[in-house]
């Protein structure tokens, strides 16, 4: 939060985003998160994002490495600093603010 409140640098336009979404199998929350995030990215980060979706059931060791507790979890790996979001990614304004994006409506 501290990073974005009065962020002098605005990521508008050219910055490339690298995002990781951790999910737990085919739970309702997982599916909803994938759907919501995909539409979010296509809407606000079109052409400048890379999204990796990881099923923790398949790679349980990652849960420890990435300090995962709540799922679904979105981590913004780039641009730095790392940012984390949990939930089904349904609240777009939180994502926008958290990722440092301004809405282009």
């Amino acid at each position, binding site marked *: *939060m*501290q990073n974005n409140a009065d962020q002098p640098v605005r990521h508008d336009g050219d910055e490339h985003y690298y995002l990781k979404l*951790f999910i*737990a199998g085919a*739970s309702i*929350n997982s599916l*909803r*998160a994938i759907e*919501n995030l995909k539409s979010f990215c296509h809407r606000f980060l079109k052409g400048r994002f890379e999204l990796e979706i990881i099923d*923790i*059931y398949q790679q*349980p*060791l990652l*849960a*420890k490495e990435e*300090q*995962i*507790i*709540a*799922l*679904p*979890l979105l981590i913004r790996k780039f641009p730095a600093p*790392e*940012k*984390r*979001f*949990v*939930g*089904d*990614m*349904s*609240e777009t304004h*939180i*994502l926008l603010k*958290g990722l440092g994006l301004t809405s282009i409506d």
Partner: protein
Amino acid sequence: MGPTKITGSKYSTLPKTPTGITGLDQITAGGIPKGRPSLICGEAGSGKTLMAMEFIVRGALEYGEPGVFLAFEEKSEELAMNVASLGFDLEQLQKDKMIKIDHIHIDRSEIEETGEYDLEGLFIRLDYAIKSINAKRVVLDTIENLFSGLSNQNILRAEIRRLFTWLKEKGVTAVITGERGEGGLTRQGLEEYVSDCVILLDHRVINQISTRRLRIVKYRGSQHGTNEYPFLIDEEGVSVLPVTSLELSNEVSSERISSGIVGLDAMLEGKGFYKGSSILVSGTAGTGKTSIAATFADAACKRGEKCLYFAFEESPNQIIRNMRSIGIDLQAHVDAGLLIFYASRPTLYGLEMHLVAIHKFITKYEPDVVILDPITNLITVGAVSEVKSMLVRLIDFLQQKQITVLFTALNFNAIINEQTDEGVSSLVDAWITVRDIESNGERNRGLYIMKSRGMKHSNQVREFVISDEGLDLVEVYLGPEGVLIGSARISHEVEQQTGIAIRDQAVNRKDREVHRKKQILESKISGLRAEFESTEEELNKMYEEEALKKEIIEKSRDEMIRLRQDLKKRNDNDN
């Protein structure tokens, strides 16, 4: 074992997992419920994490059950360092795949919530950890940290409920720690309902002395001790004191042991105290309570028994020096390893801590005789009722172990002492009181046996004398003036001795007179005999003279006859 079998043999009882924590398994009659979650809750610094960690470590070391420790608060290295002081080598145990520590970091400032979520990540991590070492035990310390990291209460509560069910399904014995909340056992008021066993830890400071206590708040499907039990955290981990046993069914011995004072043994049917009994020696200051205790210890050591001496007033060296002055060499017993001193200031710990410490020492050294000198000093750290309850539990414990215990108690003044004594005295088997008796300008010690269960003890007062040769009891003089003690008794004894001397003299005088009379008579007899002898001699002389005369006469007559015959012959011849 009696009370634990209350459910009878027909029904299978709840399986339990021993925690391995000293005393806790006794209170819970075998441990915490196997394959179910238990909650340890308490305030900050009450020892939750340590107890939970000991559950895991003891499980791995003593019961061969691997365990997972999920730490929400401290990092693995920090935990390892914290418990290294207890001699637990977490690094090695982790290498041996007996323990797995997983640190869960959660920070609200780094996470934003957007919509619905669940804690599946936690479940996966836990599941992975359990499977990787085939864990039988799990600790979650402290689960409510989740609430500080995530904000959606509804989700968290539902997920924690799910976690408890999940843990049960996994069949692991779980310990969850929780911070004590206001008005409830935990902050969320949730964990205590979903746990099968709830242990509450408490850390209280009364009169600037802290005491840790533990209470089993609930235990589904099992009988358990419901009292508050003190516990101690020291270099060997957590020790809980199962202070009150559930029944009064201690074995008793009819064996007798000497008090070390001949006169006192004589008052106790000549045999002394029962082995495994509890003895209280009370008295005002300077009445020789410590001397009685030391003599008792000395006698025990001389029999080759082990004695543990808890000194709350004087240092061991001081006691040894002082007892040397009455001819008791305690140092020799210390050197021989038969006498062990444990000295501590009463104010060092709380009362319960003392009890736990005493308990630990007794378990460690397994003595035959225990001395607490004096218990009244403990009252400085607790109320009379607390001291009493502590002693009940101590006596109980000692009787189970067939250890004879001697307490000394200081009476401050007449009014309080009766109350204090009564408070404690109903618990003990034998009660001896030493009282100062002030009369004729001096103070002397009178010793009474107030009670001695199971024997015909003397009801008389004895004068208690401390000399260079040790302790002795002297029968007091009962006379028309009442009981005489001290110099009054001695002067009476002198008086009696004088009387005897005078009587002796009188007898002597009579003897001499008889002797003299005898001498006089004898001299008279010898005079008479002399007289008789001279008379006899006279008579003999006369008799001899007569005989001589007679002989001479006869001779001369014969001569005359012969002469006459000669003459006749001549005449005849002439004719």
